[in-house]
């Protein structure tokens, strides 16, 4: 059975969903929000997206795509060049390797997993950002960004779950 052109285009667009959502999170993370200054998230929102899709649909967000997203973020100024890319890749790689542990687990366990993995990745990001700068960065903004990201995880994961049910059930 040959699929019609429109049908194929539809599937193609649906397959792009994880990539586009991560891109959206990356851009949303840099918008000047009407909240106090220290609440800027850096790569936080994109981190959630990469973790979520790495666990649930890694086929639709392959590693090179994560790399490209990280690079775009760094070029936008989210983190020093290469550092944001490394942080995203780390979260993705660990999520992918622990997929069997987290799949079909209750939400709290998956959240706990994000807590551990994101902490490690942000820590590594801080070390490399300090190395690139040639001096120790103030760790407080990194810790704030991490805590806010953690607190936002349930809402954003819920959003992704809805998107997944609505658009990716058939794919």
């Amino acid at each position, binding site marked *: 059975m040959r699929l019609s052109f429109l049908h194929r285009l539809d599937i193609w667009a649906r397959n792009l969903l994880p990539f586009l959502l991560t891109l959206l999170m990356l851009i949303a*993370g840099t918008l000047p929000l009407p909240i106090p200054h220290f609440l800027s998230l*850096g790569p936080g929102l994109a981190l959630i997206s990469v973790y979520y899709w790495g666990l649930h649909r890694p086929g639709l967000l392959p*590693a090179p795509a994560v790399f490209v997203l990280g690079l775009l973020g760094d*070029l936008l100024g989210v983190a020093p060049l290469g550092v944001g890319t490394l942080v995203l890749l780390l979260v993705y790689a660990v999520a992918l390797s622990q997929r069997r542990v987290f799949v079909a687990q209750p939400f709290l366990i998956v959240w706990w997993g994000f807590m551990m993995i994101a902490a490690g990745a942000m820590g590594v990001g801080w070390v490399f950002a300090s190395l690139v700068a040639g001096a120790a960065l103030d760790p407080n*903004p990194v810790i704030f960004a991490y805590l806010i990201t953690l607190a936002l995880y349930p809402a954003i994961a819920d959003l992704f779950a809805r998107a997944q049910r609505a658009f990716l059930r058939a794919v």
Partner: protein
Amino acid sequence: MRLRGGSALRLASAKAWLHRFTFVLLFGASLALMVLGKSESPIVERARLTVTDAVTPIMNGLSRPLASIRQAYDNAREFLDLREENAALREQQARLVQWQSVARQLEAENRALRDLLKFAPDRAASFVTARVVADNGGAFVRSVLVAAGSRDGLRKGDAAVTGEGLVGRVAEVGERSARVLLLTDINSRIPVVIERSRDQGILAGDNSDNPRLLYLSHGSQLVPGDRVVTSAAGGAFPPGLPVGVVKSTDTGGAVVELFVDWDHMEYLRLLDYRLTGVLQGNSAEPAGAGLP
């Protein structure tokens, strides 16, 4: 049958190997990017500018509704304490009228003395006002993107100010976007002077909210509350732009509380004094490229 099973197994292991190889390659590429970024190569700058130029119109569109939400909220709050604010403003106005007469006197005196000394006046600045469209005041970097670039006359090294004081300097200029490195960023180094004692120093960011004063001249006596303004040293900035006040002092220098209010930084004024100091050296393209 056995042979086919074996080849399937080999195919699977080859796939796993390729998978691992991809990750190693990508991690290696990230590390290479860090080195490339550190080398400040013109390729990196061009790539950054291409991306920011492409994304800035989208961000400009997205940041407008956010700005109007914020404005509505501010309006509502102001409306609630209108009476108190009115009283406070009256009081302030009375005080400012006094200051105005003092300023007029000083201005006249200043002009007379300058005439006497044949003082070469500072050149007047031209400025561009631009909307802040992206705020990376985040975990690793302290910079903002503004929706104006070389086509609006921005140049690398321009000083970025708000009504309160200095915010940072223009670090990269694209065609329609520019990146402003904030005073708090770890890469920010600004020559400053203590207004009271005229002691020179360097204001250095460390990604925290309060940058530090370094390289103060020996024997300088700082007191918390001393005003810090920009210095003309190095020809980087016009002298006298307000920066902040000394918050506390220690053996290594002092911590500075900045005047700028980070939470209400919707627009930035970018001042161009046509200075060709240290900050414009080693730029990828000649300063002023794209100017008429």
